[in-house]
């Protein structure tokens, strides 16, 4: 398409269709019909649901068998994840461990760490959080101030992380810290350390989001001791490791399906007597969705072949989250005046979550910067 920015055509292999049907059958029997589904991956949590997924081998699907993984392809994982999100299943509990902490451990972790964590992630018993943002460091992640100071047999952590999704229920947090003071090279001197969130010296306080849920937190460390074997990867290599997480974090179906249930309920509203205007809007939004899905499958195909398409992933997240925010706004304007309660509840829940779509995982401005770099402008 453009030098430095390629979307290799990808398609889902034949065999994935059977898997898709398997997931659909599972969801049909598992999802509680009394709970309004929400396709925002961060909106629903259920450790029990995650454990059931694990029983089917749908966590850690691509990981090596020796750690309990399924050694299946990224495209098979893609199919499972998009089915879960589209159905509005409560995936928040295991999502981060499956999407990025596990792959991070596989890439940079010690053998001991892999043995310790991966099998339990796969069995749906261990859940992870992301410990990047701090009160004074959001987009400018390199400015973090949480420190880890070397001490006998381990590290002493001081500082605080914020916006940490599900730190209050998850077990561990991959935490980005400074192990060296800031220097001329802003990206040097950072490291990742796995913090045990159940350690009684970690203080966690909940923060309420717009819809009143307390799903993110502030996490405090005051001379928290973490043993040596919990340093993830090399000391000083933290920045590179954090960046490698982002390819996985930004290109998946959860970056364009967050508002999908609104589209489903809108379709229900216009099933019988939809006007041309309403039908054309459904058509317009569907055209966006089908195209975004092809882009995401293209990146999943590139990940499968061992590439790390960072600017393409940023582009999908930017286009995808813009779409997610467009959906509730245009659908509410096209809705019938006597819309059903179910439609209105789904819409309002989405509207309350929508501001987060373009914040979490990197704001639109930051993503556009990454895309601009891909275009050779930086």
């Amino acid at each position, binding site marked *: *398409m*453009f030098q430095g*920015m390629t*979307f290799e*055509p990808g*398609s*889902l292999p034949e065999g994935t269709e059977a898997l*898709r049907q398997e997931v659909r059958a599972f969801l049909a029997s598992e999802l509680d019909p009394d709970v309004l589904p929400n396709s925002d991956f961060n909106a629903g949590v259920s450790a029990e649901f995650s454990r059931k997924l694990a029983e089917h081998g749908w966590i850690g699907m691509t990981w090596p068998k020796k750690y309990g993984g399924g050694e299946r392809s990224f495209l098979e994982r893609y199919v499972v994840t*998009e089915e879960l999100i*589209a*159905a509005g299943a409560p995936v928040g509990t295991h999502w981060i461990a499956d999407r990025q902490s596990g792959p991070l451990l596989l890439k940079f972790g010690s053998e001991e760490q892999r043995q310790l964590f991966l099998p339990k992630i796969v069995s749906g018993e261990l859940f992870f959080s992301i410990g990047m943002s701090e009160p004074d460091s959001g987009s400018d992640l390199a400015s973090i101030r949480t420190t880890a100071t070397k001490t006998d047999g381990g590290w002493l952590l001081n500082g605080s992380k914020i916006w940490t999704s599900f730190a209050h229920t998850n077990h561990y947090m991959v935490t980005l810290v400074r192990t060296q003071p800031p220097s001329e090279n802003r990206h040097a001197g950072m490291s990742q350390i796995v913090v045990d969130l159940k350690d009684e010296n970690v203080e966690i306080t909940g923060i309420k989001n717009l819809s009143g849920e307390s799903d993110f937190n502030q996490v405090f460390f005051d001379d928290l001791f973490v043993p040596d074997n919990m340093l993830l990867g090399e000391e000083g290599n933290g920045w590179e490791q954090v960046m490698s997480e982002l390819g996985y974090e930004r290109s998946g179906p959860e970056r364009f399906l967050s508002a*999908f249930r609104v*589209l*489903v*309920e809108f*379709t*229900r509203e*216009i*099933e019988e007597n*939809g006007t*041309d205007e*309403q*039908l*054309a*809007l*459904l*058509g*317009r939004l*569907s*055209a*966006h*969705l*089908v*195209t*975004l*899905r*092809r*882009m995401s499958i*293209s990146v999943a195909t590139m990940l499968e072949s061992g590439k790390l398409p960072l600017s*393409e992933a940023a*582009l999908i997240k*930017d*286009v995808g989250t*813009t779409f997610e925010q467009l959906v509730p706004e245009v659908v509410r304007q096209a809705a019938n005046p006597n819309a059903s309660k179910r439609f209105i509840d789904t819409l309002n829940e989405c509207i309350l979550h929508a501001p987060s779509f373009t914040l979490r995982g990197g704001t639109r*401005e930051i*993503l*556009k*910067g990454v*895309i*601009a770099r*891909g*275009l*050779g*402008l*930086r």
Partner: protein
Amino acid sequence: MNEQQQLIKDTLSRLLTDLCTPQEVDAAENGEWAGNLWQTLNETGLALAGVPETAGGSGGDLEDSLLVLHEAARFSAPVPLAEHFIAGLLLAEQGAVVGDAPTTIAVGDFEIDDALNLSGSAENVAFARWCGEIVLAARGTAGMKLCRIAVAETDLTPGLSVAGEPRDTISVSRQLDAANVFDAGDDIEHRIRLMGAATRSVMMAGALESTLEMSVQYSQERSQFGRSISKFQAIQHQLAVMAGEVAASTLAADCIKESFASLNEVDIAIGKARTGEAVSVCTDLAHGIHGAMGYTLEHSLNHRTRRLWCWRDEYGAEKEWQLLIGQKFVAGGADNLWATITDQS
């Protein structure tokens, strides 16, 4: 992209760089037929890359032809490649061969009686004045017919698109030879419309890519406040938005290329609707980034953007195709919406 397609892309890109300069495009807009360019495209077999050899084509895949349209649109090639390709395919289905001179397609209101008297007219016939023949669909007494007729045998009133390309009105009242009238299925007009929308979508994707390239390049060359404007974050972000729209268009067009043989209605509708929407965003941003220079006929940005404004309206603007998608998708019901989407490979 397979080896054959890479070869087509490279050959075409070399050839168009030489033969389809901005000056050539301007000349065509000033009424000069790009005969040299056409002859070369025809002789190299590129004009009919995906049409069977028995029908005068090069015998490649349909995708090859769509790739040619995609690449030619990056250069605003002022020749009726899309129409000639569609005519070539329709004639090939009848065991007939398209001529060396370009053939165009007329979409209008035509009737043909049992004595083969063809009458009717069509507006916006692309490049008609420069073509040898026209292929069109006409209502016969016992079903639809596909007809071919020499341009010289029609009454032609010249017209121009917003891109300055010939979009002529033709009217016909003449008896045809039996050899130029074929039985066509009742869906022939619909199939022509789908082929037209498919080719326009692919062309839009090509022109959009080129628009992005021009905008990136211009932003790096133009300097204000002591630095190249590409260093301003606002400009970078506008280019990033364009890149997103262009990527979506390219993938939507790729989908059309892959399924062209089956003329999958929904794939084509999605392609036309999505690329059409991208045109509004990208032409706006590209012109903003190019400043007053882009608002002139001197800079060749106008070759791309004016064609994009023309093509998005041809063979159905966004709304028409969005409605088709909406009708298809709603039919499956709300609870199957997701399955309907995943069925669109």
